[in-house]
């Protein structure tokens, strides 16, 4: 072993630097973004503010917002991947010319495989999970009337581990040039070194591993918070549905994420240490990998969808102006889903050749789990019954979700029937099924939740007109992109193809999917426009009362955005729709009390930096880097655990002073007529506003101020 290898490890060479069009482009793009951010923050002298107020914050509301911002960017990144996949498949017919070294279309098989692997990982781990965690962070403590989480520091650690995972999943652009080409959950033995010798699979392992540990920690934190920190009077049967959904989801997460961690470790041992857990040689068993990864992978989908169910529970009840009509049914539905979620995973591999009894049993469980899901549907129907329904944007997302999720749910039950699954497994029918559920269930739930609680996040509601436009583009785009996918599956199209015979007649359907993807992209652009238009009109859209929708649970009892400590006075809960009840009885003037506040800490940030460098050392097999990083992690945890002064007391008089100060500067509520959503800016108004702004900017030479 020479010095160079001792320092750089056996894998890092000049060849690892970007030298293909997509790695150079990706790296340049990321560096350009980072440069713009650095310049803006420096010019605005915001570094200290950023570090002290946000990056080291232990406030779950701020962490929640950071989760959602990063998830939003990752949604754009993963969406771009989707368009690239569809474009390749539209061009991939065997009679089409190839560009850029591809046989047909513009992506080589290997490159396409990396893109859909990254697409899946980013959308599931770094978009859906992150949005869900963002919502839970912000809303659950408010909904249960708590001032903070049970373990505020653990929460920052979980968040920063997630960020480390985000960087790890994107780092192959700058170093290594390849991501895993194995499918989003990989398959053994393809993920082994025998078939995937490069760093791609190692990046895959470590981005999932690091963010997965963060998920486990966060799940523990939320379970304890929900169990232990509810407001006085809020028994477990008085919790709002979103909190219920989050609790069920987090209970599953804490059960199955260690499985993912273990599976990834075994994979890593196979690759780094040459063990034989999942290899085809030396007595390894690839089938074991399939089983283990799906034992985590199936519950993972329910982990994502249960909080989304919770969001819809809140949305339907609020906008029907009624309590959930059969609360026990809805809650039992959630509990049912989460307790059965761990007993269906084998339906992901009926085709591996288990006997009829085993297959039939897991088929049966897949039928049974549809029952609690149906219960939720009936609870929503009964809630709408005799309601007084407002068709706001969150409500539209709900109505869209009923359509898309039903399609996804029914096709899912069909795939749970072994004789049917033998004909459809790994076809595009399957891909269409889970996109119906994850896009049409989870993502629509997230959009509904973000729109619903946006006033709580920002102090002003989102533009309703452009929001509704975006919804229609999404739903039409959905029908154009995922219905053809079902049809293709029935035509015998398998997933992940870079090329196919032109005689199959698949190409027009692939092109339709691409068009659908572009329509969805217009929807996404409209959502960005929606946010921009809302910021422009923030004074008119302001939520001065903290209760813009005539809400029912106690998160609406505090200001929008809430103070650091959430509530000036801890709410006392007597009924299920506690805030609704308070409004009926008349809200009492606050009595101020001393509040324990947790100090900000950078420990989570630093531990995650070391976790990232450890992952980096493992990916590139640089011994000293990972050894040093592991030591640094242990030392940081020790230092943190001996830090005793982590809290301070905010005196009642200070709370009163801050509250009075807030009321003094609080924005005035616009008149009901002015605040009417019918007056919201339309897309065309936004364009006109932007043009006028731009002209004014140039005319008054405002760039000199920058």
């Amino acid at each position, binding site marked *: 072993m020479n010095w160079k290898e001792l320092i750089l490890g056996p894998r890092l060479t000049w060849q690892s630097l970007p030298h293909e069009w997509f790695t150079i482009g990706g790296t340049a793009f990321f560096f350009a973004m980072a440069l713009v951010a650095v310049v803006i923050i420096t010019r605005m002298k915001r570094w200290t503010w950023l570090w002290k107020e946000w990056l080291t914050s232990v406030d779950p509301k701020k962490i929640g917002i950071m989760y959602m911002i990063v998830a939003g960017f990752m949604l754009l990144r993963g969406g771009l991947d989707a368009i690239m996949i569809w474009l390749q498949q539209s061009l991939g017919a065997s009679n089409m010319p190839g560009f850029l070294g591809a046989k047909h279309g513009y992506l080589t098989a290997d490159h396409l495989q990396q893109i859909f692997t990254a697409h899946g990982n980013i959308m599931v781990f770094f978009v859906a999970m992150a949005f869900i965690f963002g919502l839970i962070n912000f809303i659950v403590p408010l909904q249960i009337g708590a001032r903070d989480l049970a373990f505020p520091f653990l929460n920052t650690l979980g968040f920063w581990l997630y960020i480390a995972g985000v960087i790890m999943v994107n780092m192959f652009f700058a170093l290594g040039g390849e991501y895993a080409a194995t499918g989003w959950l990989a398959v053994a033995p393809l993920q082994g070194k025998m078939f995937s010798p490069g760093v791609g699979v190692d990046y895959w392992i470590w981005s999932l591993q690091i963010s997965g540990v963060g998920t486990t920690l966060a799940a523990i934190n939320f379970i304890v918070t929900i169990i232990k920190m509810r407001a006085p009077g809020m028994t477990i049967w008085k919790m709002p549905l979103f909190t219920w959904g989050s609790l069920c989801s987090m209970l599953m997460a804490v059960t199955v994420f260690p499985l993912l961690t273990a599976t990834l470790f075994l994979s890593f041992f196979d690759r780094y240490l040459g063990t034989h857990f999942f290899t085809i040689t030396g*007595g390894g068993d690839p089938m074991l990998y399939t089983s283990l990864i799906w034992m985590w992978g199936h519950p993972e989908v329910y982990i994502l969808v249960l909080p989304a169910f919770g969001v819809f529970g809140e949305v339907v009840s609020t906008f029907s102006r009624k309590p959930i009509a059969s609360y026990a049914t809805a809650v039992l539905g959630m509990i049912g889903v989460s307790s059965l979620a761990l007993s269906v995973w084998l339906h992901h591999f009926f085709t591996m050749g288990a006997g009829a009894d085993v297959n039939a049993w897991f088929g049966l469980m897949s039928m049974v789990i549809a029952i609690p899901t149906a219960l939720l549907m009936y609870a929503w129907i009964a809630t709408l019954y005799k309601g007084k329904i407002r068709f706001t944007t969150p409500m539209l997302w709900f109505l869209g979700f009923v359509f898309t999720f039903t399609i996804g749910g029914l096709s899912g*039950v069909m795939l749970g029937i072994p004789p049917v699954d033998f004909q459809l497994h790994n076809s595009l029918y399957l891909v269409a099924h889970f996109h119906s559920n994850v896009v049409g269930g989870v993502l629509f739930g997230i959009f509904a939740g973000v729109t619903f609680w946006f006033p709580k996040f920002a102090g002003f509601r989102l533009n309703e007109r452009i929001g509704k436009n975006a919804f229609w583009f999404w739903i039409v785009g959905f029908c154009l992109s995922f219905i053809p996918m079902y049809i293709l599956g029935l035509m015998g199209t398998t997933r992940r193809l870079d090329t196919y015979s032109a005689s199959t007649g698949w190409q027009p359907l692939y092109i339709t999917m691409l068009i659908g993807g572009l329509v969805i992209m217009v929807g996404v652009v409209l959502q960005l426009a929606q946010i921009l238009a809302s910021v422009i009109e923030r004074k008119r859209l302001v939520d001065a009362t903290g209760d813009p929708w005539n809400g029912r649970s106690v998160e609406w009892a505090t200001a929008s955005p809430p103070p650091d400590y959430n509530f000036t006075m801890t709410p006392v809960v007597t009924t299920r729709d506690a805030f609704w009840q308070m409004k009926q009885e008349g809200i009492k003037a606050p009595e101020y009390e001393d509040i324990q506040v947790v100090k900000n800490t950078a420990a989570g940030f630093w531990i995650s930096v070391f976790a990232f460098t450890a992952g980096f050392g493992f990916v590139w097999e640089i011994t000293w880097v990972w050894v040093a990083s592991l030591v640094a992690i242990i030392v940081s945890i020790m230092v943190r655990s001996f830090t005793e002064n982590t809290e301070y007391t905010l005196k009642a008089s200070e709370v009163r002073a801050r509250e009075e100060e807030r009321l003094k500067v609080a924005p005035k509520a616009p008149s009901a007529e002015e605040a009417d959503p019918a007056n919201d800016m339309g897309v065309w108004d936004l364009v006109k506003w932007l043009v006028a702004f731009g002209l004014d900017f140039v005319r008054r030479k405002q760039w000199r101020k920058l």
Partner: protein
Amino acid sequence: MPKNTTRQRPGSLGRAIVLGAAAFTLFYAILIHGHNVAVLNPKGWVAQQQLNMNIFGSALLLAVALPTVALLYFFAWKYRESNTKATHDPQFQANSMFLVVAWGIPILFMSALSVVMWSETHRLVPQQPIASSAKPLTVEVVALRWKWLFIYPEQHIATVNFVEMPVNTPVTFELTADETPMSGFWIPNLGGMLYAMTGHINKLNLMATTPGDYQGSTSEIAGAGFADMKFTTRAASQGDFDYWAANSQQSPEVLNEAEYTRLLKPSEADPPKTYSSYEHGLYANVLMKYSKDMAGMHMSGMEMK
């Protein structure tokens, strides 16, 4: 900027949705017209049985889901804010009748589906030979990167990316793999799918009922060339099959050790090929290579870079 455009005009919205759905259906019908929708177009006994199960299940589920979803949309529509005629009961709580319906309907339908599913799963075990008066044919299948090798032990011939079988004769495909990740053996017109894995034999029983050429593929990602890991399945009359087999025995190509070593190397979009003979014990050797008792003996030369 007062705007009235967002005033809800539900009648036109309803029409737009119905028209849109009709347009979508017509559009997709045109797109698939004249093409092989393989799963709905069974040419074999197994595919037909699996399709029957699919149609039964889909119909049953739609029978319960369509009215449910329609009811939800109907209520959402009827109890809209602007409808002053609808009764509003802010205290409405579901009664016990609702509970009976909410639990009863899904349990009833899922039980019905489960009973059929259970018996069909046991009746349609892919590993189970198909009952028939015809003498069954065995084809040994080895998944390679990225091609399929078919060995006919009774006819003593072998083929690559092409398999011929007589109609109305049960065929047992004995699936395994060599130095290749898991592959999913799928001929959608004839019936679905089992995995081919190293060191294992998965027996997939199929029976063609209509002569014709049917596309087969792998359903599982297995590296760069897997999209072209396709083969043609020719279902022919017994006479045509016998003729083809006899003809194949005259092929100049033989599958000796050197040729098999060449096949083991990754290659993409291999054209169909026929061998008049193959190395004795080839299939058994492929299996033995991964036998756990033999671990280490055959493996030494196998770790690739």
